[in-house]
């Protein structure tokens, strides 16, 4: 996971660089929560361009982070998803609260 904070736009950009399953989520969750609580961004963008696999553990991970971001007064977006990942995301309905957006950078 690589993250970058854009101070000007108050936006935390998180690129996930590993496959997302039950095994990997705990580590990713800890790292994400550290960054989110550190910067308290107005917006968090989850970049999926480097994610080749995600199962339902990813849904739990995203819902949990969304709750944290929202509690801190921010919003969340997803970008650069592959077709397979979109399929999992859309099935869960999570895209209604964390929309999939076109790449912004």
């Amino acid at each position: 996971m690589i993250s970058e904070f854009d101070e000007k736009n108050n936006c935390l950009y998180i690129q996930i660089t590993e496959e997302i399953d039950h095994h990997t989520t705990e580590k990713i969750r800890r790292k994400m929560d550290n960054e989110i609580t550190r910067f308290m961004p107005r917006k968090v963008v989850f970049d999926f361009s480097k994610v080749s696999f995600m199962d339902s553990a990813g849904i739990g991970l995203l819902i949990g982070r969304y709750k944290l971001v929202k509690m801190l007064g921010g919003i969340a977006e997803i970008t650069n998803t592959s077709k397979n990942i979109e399929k999992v995301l859309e099935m869960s309905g999570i895209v209604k609260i964390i929309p999939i957006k076109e790449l912004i950078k």
Partner: protein
Amino acid sequence: MKSKYDNEMELKFISKSNNEAFARVTVAAFVAQLDPTIEELSDIKTAVSEAVTNCIVHAYENTEGSIKIKATLLKNVVEIEISDNGRGIEDIELARKPLYTTKGNLERSGMGFTIMESFMDKVEIHSVVGIGTKIVMKKEIKKEENNEIIEEEKNALLN
């Protein structure tokens, strides 16, 4: 003894979470001989990952146990059987329901069976409390390349 399938394999491993990736990649490699599309292969990997995670999180509740996968190929149908000797499922109908989870505190989404059912053609759940659970999933690998060839032939004849 001659197998009634075109091919079959068995895999047995302990319920460690780093075996989730091992299991789905191994099954995908086995299924690859049917020449599936990337999407079909990804569907199978996701379904296997969900089933194996259920064994680890629910059947054995993070204690050590054994997980067995048997996969068979017959014509263009893959059948995958994933079984454990864990605690079993008390209410299968409830477990199948989207968003239902007994482990919401662990950020589990409750989408495991829903994903298995929509990514595979058929999913059977057999479970006995205190004995274990067996999931049997089937998926037909569509012969898209052949369809294209047939379409081309059709077009050639029509022209």
